């Protein structure tokens, strides 16, 4: 456990000594702030639903920037040769790095809480719906970062890792739109089930469905297991 903690702390140190973390946090908070103002002040919405929807899209596009360096940077710096020869199992390495990236996501979450101040000051929003939205946001982020970590493991180039991750995440986000093109019920059900956006919408509407929670956790679990498996296999 001490090893996992050491790698986790190293991850955070290196994140915040490079401009990437600051860039991602700043862009995300600025974007969220803009959409919040647009939805609440200009469009006259009284809930966070529209803002959460926009936060989801922002997350899908920015998560690859957080995850791209997880392993690719280790390969290019030559530090993978140290990390993979220290007394750490592949699972410990994958988990520690994942937790590091997840911490960035949670910091972003904390930052967006500022938007809630005027909402509560001028209105009476439903706290449970907002909480459900945040649960969905974190779960979506967990799945996105796990997929990003997987693609960072399989390529030495950070840009390639980010581009592949972004393509895959956008695919998962928009796959639900293919529903109307499917004749078979099975395929219709599958594309809807695989849609990150559809599950996320449930949370935005205040529904914390077990199926959606399990879906995001299973996606994250599979991606992490593949990452650990790849590290073991590449030896």
């Amino acid at each position, binding site marked *: 456990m001490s090893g996992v903690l050491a790698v986790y702390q190293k991850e955070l140190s290196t994140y915040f000594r490079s401009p990437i973390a600051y860039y991602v946090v700043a862009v995300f908070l600025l974007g969220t702030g803009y959409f919040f103002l647009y939805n609440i002040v200009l469009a006259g919405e009284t809930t966070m639903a529209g803002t959460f929807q926009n936060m989801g899209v922002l997350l899908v596009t920015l998560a690859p920037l957080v995850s791209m360096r997880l392993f690719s940077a280790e390969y290019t710096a030559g530090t993978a040769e140290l990390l*993979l020869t220290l*007394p750490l199992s592949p699972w410990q390495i994958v988990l520690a790095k994942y937790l590091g990236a997840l911490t960035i996501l949670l910091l972003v979450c904390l930052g967006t809480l500022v938007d809630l101040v005027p909402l509560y000051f001028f209105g009476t929003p439903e706290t449970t719906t907002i909480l459900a939205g945040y649960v969905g946001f974190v779960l979506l982020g967990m799945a996105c970062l796990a997929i990003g970590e997987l693609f960072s493991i399989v390529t030495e180039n950070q840009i390639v890792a980010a581009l592949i991750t972004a393509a895959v995440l956008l695919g998962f986000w928009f796959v639900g739109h293919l529903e109307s093109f499917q004749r078979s019920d099975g395929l219709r059900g599958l594309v809807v089930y695989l849609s990150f956006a559809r599950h996320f919408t449930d949370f935005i509407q205040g529904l914390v469905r077990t199926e959606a929670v399990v879906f995001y956790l299973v996606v994250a679990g599979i991606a992490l297991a593949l990452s650990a498996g790849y590290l073991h296999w590449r030896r």
Partner: protein
Amino acid sequence: MSSTAASIVLDSVSKRYGSRTILHDLSFSVGRGEIVGFLGPNGAGKTTTMRMLAGFTAATTGRVMVAGHDMATDNVEAARHIGYLPERPPLYDPLDVTAYLRFVARIKGVRRTAMAAELERVVSACHLEAVVRHEIYKLSKGYRQRLGLAQALLGAPDVLLLDEPTAGLDPGQILETREVIRAFGRDHAVLLSTHILAEVTLICQRVAIIDHGRLLAIDSPAGLQRAVAQTNRVALRVAAPAEGLRDALLSVKGVSAVDVQPAAGAPALLDVDCQVDAGDGVEAEIARAVAARWDLHRLERQQPTLENIFLRYVATPVDPDAR
């Protein structure tokens, strides 16, 4: 070195990447208290061997044992006993020197109470005192190399794997680093890959020569010299006709080949290179045979240097059918 007492054992190890075979049936061992030099030209398979011993990559066939642990099944436990300096020092540039060493030490299991003393030990051994608060990206190449060595020494591992540890160091730093390795090797197993042949002679008890993924020889530097002395050479400078001289030399017992060339800058003289069998006295026989008829200007028996031994081994063509 018996394999049961050895800290490093490679037993019929091969490594293949697709259809390409990098290592062929490699077997050798390194015992506790022994420093073994690992020599070979670029692409010989040294780094792959080092990586296999460190657990970065696995053998395709054969068995790799380090500190009593099978690297195929128990590499995480084995890693607790290994200090590894790769060819390129594995440094996290954004961290400072202390944070980096603390990071490695924690994963290697150095206790919190012993941390300060352990960091001080390796910092002092590798002469890093002046840069402990510096960020790594600001360090010179020499300091980076020494920091890489320092992290390998953390936790006093049973086995130290060093891939060109003195690369990029100035002469003073090289001497200091050699002393660190020599001291560490007194009661640990050290495998040292290097291109500096003098380094091997100075600090290694044994030398392993590898080329095209095959182990060509492993012996003490003196043992290798003795082995190569089986085909020793005698160099002469003589004023004589070439054909007559060649016949006279080939008639001397122990001379197996003669190469005669005009001496550079002295057209009346010939430079002769005789390949001779091992044993004393052959040069005296040559001197008598030549001096009886011609004017002998110089005679010198050339002892094999480690460079010559290395070049002789790696210059021998490998039978492609054997791969």
